[in-house]
């Protein structure tokens, strides 16, 4: 029995727009058919036509390929496959964002996109990856993927990849040496110390933290008093009184001194530093059960394929367009032909710049919205 959604997928896969991974014949493919939970693994293709025909014949609800490339991609075990290397993959998902639970689907997607922009800053700035070796995709579901195909990282093992993840998430950062107390004057019992911070143009995390500290205090200085105080009291351990002391001591001269690496007398920064570090870092914590970036053999959604739970396409996001990219416009594949369905739960969403606010019950909606609702199990198509 073919469902309505499956039929839509069948039409798409008759003429799909797939982004073929480089070395695509060396990759393992895996798919989940409609109506099944079980993943079929260890598939391989020799030509582009093979992959096209696989999609056309099987019409999968989900299709993945391996970040790794192998001697024998369709061998059943890792040893027999013969690992040759793997792209570096970053999987940013709403599930990994703290506090994403309360957000709507579009808000969630926007929050993840902000993390992706932060990640790209790390990858292009700190790691120096060129545009040719970086590709960003909307996952079709609740997140974004970034694929790094630089040959120098493809052969890195999992320990080494973990170091990259730690860099990006700020894990293991030596915060002690970032802010150092230095004795500037000592006579008898009198000791005067000064707190030193890194310069904004230093490489690595030192410069990053420095810029974040300066940016933060500059924004406090520029903000109305009320708002600045409110910002400050959000930090753990800073009450209204301390916030006022900090705010009143904040001057353009002080910020100028920060740019020169001088913090002077300012004990509060030690409490604030961990929070400012977290803001600069990317939230990339995988669930313990899930494979994370350090994995050298994970499966990733095939770019250009459709996500079975949304009907949205795994869409390429050009690096320069990421700010404007809107998955609920740009990753929409299906047209607006009317579909009659029964909605189980009230839903408010905007797609293709059209707002929908639907109560449970019978509706006729555009096919693209029907695919999202049916895929997420919120509605059934009337036959």
């Amino acid at each position, binding site marked *: 029995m073919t469902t309505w959604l499956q039929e839509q997928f069948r039409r798409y896969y008759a003429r799909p727009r797939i982004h073929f991974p480089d070395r695509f014949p060396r990759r393992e493919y895996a798919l989940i058919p409609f109506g099944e939970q079980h993943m079929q693994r260890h598939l391989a293709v020799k030509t582009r036509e093979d992959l096209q025909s696989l999609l056309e014949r099987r019409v999968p609800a989900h299709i993945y390929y391996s970040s790794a490339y192998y001697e024998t991609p369709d061998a059943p075990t890792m040893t027999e496959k013969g690992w040759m290397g793997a792209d570096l993959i970053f999987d940013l998902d709403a599930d990994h964002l703290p506090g994403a639970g309360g957000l709507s689907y579009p808000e969630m997607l926007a929050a993840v996109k902000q993390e992706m922009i932060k990640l790209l800053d790390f990858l292009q*700035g700190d790691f120096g990856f060129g545009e040719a070796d970086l590709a960003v995709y909307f996952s079709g579901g609740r997140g974004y993927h970034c694929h790094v195909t630089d040959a120098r990282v493809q052969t890195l093992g999992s320990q080494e990849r*973990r170091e990259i993840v730690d860099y990006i998430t700020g894990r293991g950062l030596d915060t002690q040496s970032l802010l150092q107390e230095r004795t500037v004057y000592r006579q008898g019992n009198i000791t005067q110390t000064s707190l030193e911070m890194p310069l904004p143009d230093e*490489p*690595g995390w030192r410069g990053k933290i420095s810029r974040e500290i300066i940016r933060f205090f500059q924004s406090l200085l520029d903000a109305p008093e009320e708002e600045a105080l409110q910002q400050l009291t959000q930090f753990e351990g800073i009450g209204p009184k301390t916030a006022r002391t900090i705010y009143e001591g904040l001057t353009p001269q002080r910020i100028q001194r920060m740019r020169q690496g001088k913090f002077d007398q300012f004990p509060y920064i030690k409490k604030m530093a961990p929070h400012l570090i977290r803001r600069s870092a990317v939230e990339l*914590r995988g669930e*313990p*059960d899930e494979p994370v970036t350090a994995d050298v053999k994970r499966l990733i959604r095939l770019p250009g394929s459709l996500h079975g739970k949304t009907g949205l396409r795994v869409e390429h996001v050009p690096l320069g367009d990421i700010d404007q990219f809107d998955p609920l416009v740009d990753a929409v594949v299906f047209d607006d032909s009317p579909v009659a369905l029964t909605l189980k739960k009230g839903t408010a969403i905007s797609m293709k710049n059209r707002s929908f606010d639907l109560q449970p019950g019978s509706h006729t909606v555009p096919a693209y919205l029907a695919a999202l609702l049916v895929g997420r199990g919120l509605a059934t198509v009337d036959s």
Partner: protein
Amino acid sequence: MDIYVLARYPFLSEAKEVVRRENVRTEEILHDPIYERARDIGRQRVTDALEEGVVGGYPVASETDALMNIFSYPIARMIVASVGHPYFRGRYALAEAKRAYEFLQGESRDFLLQVARELEVAVDDDLRLHFADYLRHAPTRSQRWKLVNMPLSQGWLSLDHRELARVLQNAIQHRLFEELRDMRPPSEISNVFREEVTAIRNTLQQREMREKAEMGEASVAKLPPCMRMLLAAIQTGANVPHVGRFTLVSFLNAIGMDTEEILGLFAASPDFDRERTRYQIEHITGKVSGTDYTPPSCASIKTWGLCPTDKMDAICRRVNHPLSYYRIKGRRRK
């Protein structure tokens, strides 16, 4: 290159070239009295690697001394290869690399660059290294060396002289280990160095036995932070994912706890279900499944997000595997 310099770095291709140019047959090296000194130093290299963890300190007062030192290296390698023990190959490679590091710190920048080139570590004239090479060779397990604490910019990071020497130590170790792994020593070696090879094998075996004994009686006090955290989570009834249970149970099993003992630890959990838990434990310990799972390494534990990085202690930073932590902790308490 000066022959005295080469004597410090007998693994460099130029030193190997010296051996080749002398044009002696393996037979001569193994039997000819001329090479007696080389054979002695070769034996010494191997024993020092085993006992001290670092080779070197052999007198080089003359050109002949230097040459004998250079010849001793291929002999030592043949002995190590015929011992045929992966752990010992690693230990020997490290011992040679450590010696090289001592010397490298005092060499010129150009010399370091030359060694780097031979080891295929891409360093530019300003001692800048691409992060991928850095990750392959730097001792990133210690916090100071973690990439996150390095001045990374546009993919490159600057090292000082000593740091580069240290990175090269690891590159040398990796190179020597790979060479040893692929080496097929002539069978004649086991005859000439029969005593040494047997003695080393016995020592290694004894060490293994001692390590097993050191594990001693299973004790919760010796658990690494990750296992303590998992155990506390289970005992307080917190939601622990499957990999977490798997990690803990396979670990407790490996330190010698049986199902009853593990059940005893888990019984504190508020929603403790003895039979269900027993089944789960026996599945992991191999009673049900027939597979006795080995506990995961620190790398896997980190990948799964189960390593409480804020609770890591000095021992954690030294080890790759929670069992090593347990062993070291056991040793300290005696």
